[in-house]
């Protein structure tokens, strides 16, 4: 029995008929050759979020990002230049290709502040704008014009404080790529939420499997059953999970969910520590004192139905950036960076309004600790799934209506791969987006 209304088409999935309702084939998550194409077709063609502007507080602030998802060794420097413009460059000296910025271990990411970048090898120097400014024993070179040897730039654009890069110089601008969901999120007070917890894990599963796990909450009452009080857990399992709404706009998607735990209707529903600290999985129950997070102040994309029992919205920006908002006024991000068909690096970042006292600090601490406990369970399940689908004993899997976004993710990834193959490895990004936006326009016309 549906507790929340579904679209007139009869189900969320049938509302987007191109997704189909047949079992889904998971060859895309186990075939090493397919993964190599995904790297080229997706991770070298789409906008990838590499962090927030708070990591670059002043002129000359920089950090490096290792980007193996775009190919082994790929490394990028992100820097705030003298005009306070955020720029990105390949992390490579133009002289003989030494990695430019690193400490101790060339494979590890670093951050800091500097006036210029100096290569460790022969002291070639580059300005924050990427220009080659000094060559050791310049007179020994042959017809060397420093103007020809600046750092190789990487497309870099910022949306609402989130820094994105794109390895495709022909890609459409970021805001066009992020589309209507992003437009509908503008104005959320991201900049107030600077209390930052960051997690990292190496996961022995395909990158899409972890996104699968986070774009459906069908699993939540079962996998995480033990984390709720017994009576409440049984009730939740009996009800199962139904989202308030799903939405798809081109290559991106979102799920809007209810959540009665912040604060709970009845204190007996929650664990003793939650009762004392007024916090739990959904975060601190008491909203921080800032503008922009009250139910009627939220930007239009969040809780689009303005549902009273709304608890959390999760936006999935293709390919690997999840932006998840919690009703009590905090957010988190996930990133999934594939390194092989059956391996990826998972990053999670929690952002709260800085606490004013210990009561607020411990309520955030409990939310952060709770997050990690849940993520552990989610992560371990993935390896168990990867090993089994890898056997190909079963190749196609039935997905229910609450798993609609999995269909969309795998289809979108396939669309990129197919477009790449069909275009003989050319730049397809802009075309794909145009097609996706057109589909979306038709969809909106049909359902508004």
């Amino acid at each position, binding site marked *: 029995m549906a507790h929340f209304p579904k679209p007139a088409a009869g189900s969320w999935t049938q509302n987007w008929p191109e997704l189909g309702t047949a079992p889904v084939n998971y060859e895309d998550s186990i075939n090493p050759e397919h993964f190599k194409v995904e790297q080229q077709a997706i991770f070298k063609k789409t906008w990838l979020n590499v962090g927030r502007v708070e990591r670059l507080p002043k002129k000359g602030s920089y950090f490096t990002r290792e980007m193996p998802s775009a190919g082994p060794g790929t490394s990028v420097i992100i820097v705030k230049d003298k005009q306070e413009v955020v720029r990105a460059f390949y992390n490579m000296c133009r002289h003989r290709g030494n990695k430019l910025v690193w400490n101790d271990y060339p494979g590890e990411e670093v951050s800091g502040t500097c006036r210029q970048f100096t290569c460790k090898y022969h002291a070639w120097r580059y300005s924050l704008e990427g220009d080659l400014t000094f060559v050791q024993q310049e007179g020994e070179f042959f017809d060397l014009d420093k103007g020809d040897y600046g750092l190789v730039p990487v497309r870099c654009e910022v949306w609402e404080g989130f820094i994105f890069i794109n390895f495709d110089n022909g890609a459409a601008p970021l805001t066009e790529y992020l589309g209507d969901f992003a437009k509908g999120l503008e104005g959320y007070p991201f900049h107030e939420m600077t209390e930052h*917890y*960051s997690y990292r*894990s190496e996961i022995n599963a395909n990158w899409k499997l972890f996104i699968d796990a986070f774009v459906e909450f069908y699993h939540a009452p079962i996998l995480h059953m*033990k984390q709720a009080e017994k009576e409440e857990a049984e009730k939740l399992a009996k009800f199962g999970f139904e989202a308030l709404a799903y939405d798809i706009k081109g290559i991106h998607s979102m799920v809007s969910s209810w959540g009665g735990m912040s604060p709970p209707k009845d204190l007996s529903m929650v664990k003793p520590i939650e009762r004392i*600290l007024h916090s739990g999985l959904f975060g601190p129950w008491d909203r921080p004192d800032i503008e922009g997070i009250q139910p009627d102040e939220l930007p239009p994309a969040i809780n689009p139905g303005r549902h009273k029992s709304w608890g959390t919205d999760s936006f999935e920006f293709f390919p690997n950036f999840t932006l998840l908002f919690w009703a009590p006024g905090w957010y988190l991000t996930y990133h999934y960076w594939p390194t092989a068909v059956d391996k990826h690096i998972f990053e999670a970042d929690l952002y709260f309004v800085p606490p004013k006292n*210990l009561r607020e600090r411990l309520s955030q601490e409990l939310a952060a600790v709770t997050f990690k406990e849940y993520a*552990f369970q989610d*992560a*371990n399940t993935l*390896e168990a799934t990867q090993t089994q689908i890898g056997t190909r004993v079963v190749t196609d899997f039935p997905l229910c209506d609450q798993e609609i976004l999995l269909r969309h993710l795998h289809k979108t990834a396939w669309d990129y791969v197919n477009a790449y193959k069909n275009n003989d490895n050319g730049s397809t990004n802009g075309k794909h987006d145009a097609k996706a936006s057109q589909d979306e326009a038709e969809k909106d016309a049909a359902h508004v």
Partner: protein
Amino acid sequence: MSKLPEEFADLERFSDWCLPTEEERYSKRLNSTMAEMQELYDAGMARLEDIMVYVDARVPLKGMPKDAKALVHLGQSIVMVSFPVEVWKQPRVLDSGASYIQLIKEPVV
């Protein structure tokens, strides 16, 4: 010499849990018995409200006296042991054998 303010002398026996980083607290959790964590939980939960009242009379969190800071770290450890005690009945997250998630950045008090 005691780490905690004298008002919390009853918790002094848990002062090896006064650990500033999550990595240290998580590691101590994994290397503790359930009996040890149950003891901290029982004593700590009864005083958690008092801990918050005491510290919040001495905010901001940055730059507070050393003994109050130790008390904050103890409070964070009480949160840390709450999951093994209230939920898992074991130090590790259930069914998490192969996975490891590392906290790489946190606001340390």
